[in-house]
């Protein structure tokens, strides 16, 4: 499995890659997040599943990074999904309406089945 620096990228099946997010997602995360996105694109993923189980902190800059990733994914006709969000960050996804663009699941199994 190839890994982007700081974030793991796993190929789950022929069309899905999982990006394992660890630690903080802020504006400073852009290089790592975009490298992970590129790695998933190299794996020819049509679905990108973001695993937030090990997320420690995300701020407004990190939300901006997710929007940037979403814009790129939309252009490439890729689907984004997520799981492992805490209650607080689920609320922030709802508040920002990110949950309407990134499908949220409770766990990896349901995310991969989705």
């Amino acid at each position: 499995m190839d890994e982007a620096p700081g974030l793991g990228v796993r190929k789950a099946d022929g069309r899905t890659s999982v990006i394992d997010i660890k630690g903080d997602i802020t504006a400073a995360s852009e290089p790592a997040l975009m490298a992970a996105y590129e790695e998933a694109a190299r794996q020819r993923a049509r679905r990108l599943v973001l695993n937030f189980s090990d997320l420690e902190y995300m701020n407004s800059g990190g939300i901006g990074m997710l929007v940037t990733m979403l814009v790129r994914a939309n252009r490439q006709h890729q689907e984004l999904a997520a799981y492992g969000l805490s209650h607080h960050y689920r609320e922030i996804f709802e508040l920002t309406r990110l949950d309407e663009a990134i499908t949220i699941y409770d766990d990896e199994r349901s995310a991969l089945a989705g």
Partner: protein
Amino acid sequence: MNHPAYPASQAPRPPRRLASFELASVPGSERVALARVAQSVAGLNLPSGRLENLKTAVAEATMNAIEHGNGNRSDLTVDIEVFFSGTEITVAISDHGGRGDAGWIDGGEVPDLARKLRGEQGPRGWGLFLIRNMVDRLEVTASGERRTVWLAMRTQAPQAAGPGQEE
């Protein structure tokens, strides 16, 4: 540090100061701010959801103070004070950048994800939106070089009015 004047609108009764500290205007100070504010209110039995909201608002307001208020000048501090009135926590976050107009709080575009995805807005610009939605009240005061953002949060969420109850 000099303390900002506590606005009358924020004071249901004279508040008790729980913490007062300064941070350098450097990346990462917002993480220190949220941890120290959380520590200072630890004994107040704030429900966990409201504590997480307060931490997010404090971090965002501290980042605003560092970046927009102090212009990322590491020689300028961000001053943070935490007050408790008995039912409400107030956090005052002050910068010293001399951008003393309080009008910024009403300015700027409300972030709209659909417009961002269409490229009509930039991907960033969520900070003030998050602050507004995380706390019960937000106020800005300015005096000289100092601008202070006041974040107020009741220790309990207001109850929805039921039959026979007044809001």
